[in-house]
C-alpha cells in the first residue's frame, strides 16, 4: 500500500479502478427470456378503440332520435346573436388547438426520452 492516503483524489481513483467488468455470462439472455409479451400491440389497440368509438356513435345516434337533435341545435344556433356565435367558434378552436398541442408535446417527450 504505497499510495499516499493524503491525496484527496486517491480514494475516488482507487474505488473507480476497483470496479471490475462483470462478464455477461448468459445474464442478458436470462433476462430476455423473462420479458413479458405485451397482450395487445399498439396497432391492435388503435383498431379496438376505433371500433368501440364507431359502435358508441351509432348507439348515440339511434338513442338520440335518429339525428333530430341536429336540427334542434341548428335552430338554436339560428336564433343566437352573431357575437355569441363568434365567441363559441373561437373558444372551440382554442380548445381543440390546446388539446392537440398537449398530446403532440407529450408524444414528442416520450419519443425523445
Amino acid at each position, binding site marked *: 500500500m504505497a499510495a499516499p492516503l493524503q491525496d484527496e483524489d486517491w*480514494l475516488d481513483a482507487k*474505488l473507480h479502478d476497483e470496479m471490475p467488468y462483470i462478464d*455477461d455470462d448468459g*445474464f442478458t439472455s436470462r*433476462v430476455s427470456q423473462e420479458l413479458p409479451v405485451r397482450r395487445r400491440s399498439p396497432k391492435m389497440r388503435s383498431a379496438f378503440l376505433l371500433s368501440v368509438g364507431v359502435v358508441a356513435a351509432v348507439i348515440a345516434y339511434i338513442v338520440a332520435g335518429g339525428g333530430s337533435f341536429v336540427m334542434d341545435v341548428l335552430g338554436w344556433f339560428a336564433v343566437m346573436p352573431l357575437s355569441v356565435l363568434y365567441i363559441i367558434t373561437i373558444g372551440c378552436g382554442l380548445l381543440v388547438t390546446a388539446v392537440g398541442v398537449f398530446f403532440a408535446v407529450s408524444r414528442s*417527450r*416520450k419519443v425523445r*426520452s
Partner: protein
Amino acid sequence: MSLTDADLVARVLLDDDHHAFSELVRRHQSAVRGLLRNLTRADVALADDLAQETFLKAYKNIRSFRGEAKFSTWLYRIAYNSYREDARRRKELVGIDETQLEGEQDPQTVNPALRQDLMYALRLLPLHERTAVLLCCQHGLTHEEAARVLDIPLGTVKTNVLRGREKLKHSLAAWQNN
C-alpha cells in the same frame, strides 16, 4: 453506428422491441450487478437475482422513464429500491437486519493487498454511506444524480459521501499502520 440509450428506449416504447431492450441490458448489466454485489456485500447469487428483477421492473415500467435523468441513473434507482425491498422482506421473514446480511465472498473481489482492504473497509460502512460512496465515487454519479437515485436530499448525500470517505480513509490508514 451504435444507437444511444435514448434511441433504444424509444424503440422499446414504440415497437415493444425486445432486441433493443436486450441491448440495454447488455450495456448496463455489469454496472448494475456490480452495484448490487457491493450492496449485498458480495452475495453474488442474491445480487444477480436482484439485478434480474431490476431489469424486468425497468422493462415493465419503461413508460415512466421520462429521460430527465440518464438511463443508468434510472436503473440504479430501481436496483437500490429492489435491494431495500429485499432487505425489508428478509428482516420480516427471519428477523435479521441489513447489517447482518453477510454474503458469500465473491471470488472476483478476493485479491491481495489494497483491493481486498478497500472492499473490506467498504463493507463495514453503514448502508446509507456505502451506497452514497459507491454511486458517487465508484459509479461516477453527481451528488444530484445520487440524491435522485436514493430519493434523499442533496445535503444528506453530500454528508454521507463525506462521512463514508473519511471512514474509508481512516480504515485504510489503520491497515497501513499495522
